[in-house]
């Protein structure tokens, strides 16, 4: 199995600006123009006040690991060569949590609360996946 068979993110009309920004190596979040709160995953309305007035703002890219796991089983053949690989949830400074992976740290040092900062994978098939690195 090649890299190419890894699943691509399913981009919806609601999340298109999120992925467009990532191709420019920028992390943006949908904010509510009515109540001011940001949210993830990108939705059609503000989940807090139900307003339609959403706007995209740059995120700091900083956060902490709120939880993590290391996958040891090949559910997906395309990931078999990567085993064991980590998946983390990062609580961004702005509040919402983003699922991604962490690079630049051995898996046995993954820890809840670890400060991290945004990084980007190489663009592949028009997609740039966000990832995180430990804060130096």
């Amino acid at each position, binding site marked *: 199995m090649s890299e190419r068979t*890894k*699943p691509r*993110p399913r981009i*919806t009309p609601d999340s298109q600006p999120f992925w467009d920004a990532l191709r420019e190596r920028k992390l943006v979040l949908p904010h509510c123009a009515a109540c001011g709160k940001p949210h993830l995953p990108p939705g059609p309305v503000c989940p807090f006040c139900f307003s339609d007035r959403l706007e995209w703002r740059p995120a700091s890219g900083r956060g902490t690991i709120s939880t993590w796991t290391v996958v040891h089983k090949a559910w997906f053949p395309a990931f078999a060569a990567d085993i064991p690989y980590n998946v983390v*949830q990062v609580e961004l400074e702005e509040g919402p949590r983003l699922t991604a992976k962490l690079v630049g740290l051995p898996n046995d040092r993954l820890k809840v609360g670890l400060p991290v900062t945004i990084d980007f994978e190489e663009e592949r098939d028009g997609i740039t996946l966000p990832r995180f690195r430990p804060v130096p």
Partner: protein
Amino acid sequence: MAYSIRDQTAIVGIGQSEFGRFLPDSQLKLGAKALKAALDDAGLTRADVDGVAIHLGWPLGVDYDRLAEAYGLSLRWVSQTWLHGRFVTSALQQAAMAVACGLASVVACVTAISFTRERQILGGPGDAEGTREDGGTHGESPPYGLTAPAGGAALAMQRYMALYGATSAELAAVPIAFRKHALKSPHAVMKTPLTLAEHQASRMVVDPLRLYDCCLITDGAAVVLVTSAERARDLKQAPVYIAGMQGLRSGRDEFIFAPRGLGINQQPARREQPPERDLAVYRMAGIERKDVAGLYTYDAFSPVVLFVLERFGFCGPGEAASWVQNGRIELGGELPMNTSGGLLSEAHVGGWNSILEIVRQLRGAAGERQIPKARHLQWGTAWGDSVIFRSAR
């Protein structure tokens, strides 16, 4: 409460196929065996069944129309949930509501699955859920290789361990307890004891979940027949009344495999005691939590067993991992759970194997697994839905 379904309906028949791996029978054949057994148990005939609630329909199990056609049923009410085990409670509740509302007289709740033949539907390339618009429902993130339900349970348990200092060895008390129960169930797939050393030596699947923290992948069918309490009293078996129920919790503060407030996905990270709204099942049944003689849950992964205890307030937030030690959830303990072995050690029949066990217990027919003087048993899940069953005895 203006209207309550309390004790208006009852389970009057239970049936099952054999449980096992790589069974040769079709899913429909397994279901037919279970339905015949349930009808025989209840003293009813096929013609009495006018409603069906299918749990685990497409893309995993059988669909209602093919089932009705194959079994020659004539239905006036159907309900069907898709793929997920989480809808076990919904299927049973819908059956009870349909009967109570007069939409059907006898509803067969049917789960008939061959997980071993449909293996690739769970977390593999054949799993369409993670890649559909707006993604999977267990925190899946397919581009990063988090594609199976186990991943969501792992994310929740990892944070739980970090917050409360719980350990894998403590978590092991759950599968070890259920294995002990399975050894007393003639239907159980797992036939040998599980030790702490074996649990700790078993391979890591998705950290911190080891092999024995993940449920079995098996084949089998189970059928539960629901009818009105009035009709139930004239049938062959002592009725097992549906005394109270509450629905599945969902919202931004919920994650399917975490208690409220754990901080998984977009949940607020703030734990508290269960609010009154989440204890409605006891009120409807007219009992207190302490009146529950045993708790049964959808144990897809061992952490959700801890989480259900905290969700319903059997222990406080963060206490479950220590609470389950020293046989507390075993037969003979303070709160026996999943006394036929659950999904972890009896079989994965979408949780219905535990519903069958509840019925056997409340009939006083659980043999060496019998919980003495069991009058109320609770089915409750980590995602907050529940049914309390009352014995007629």
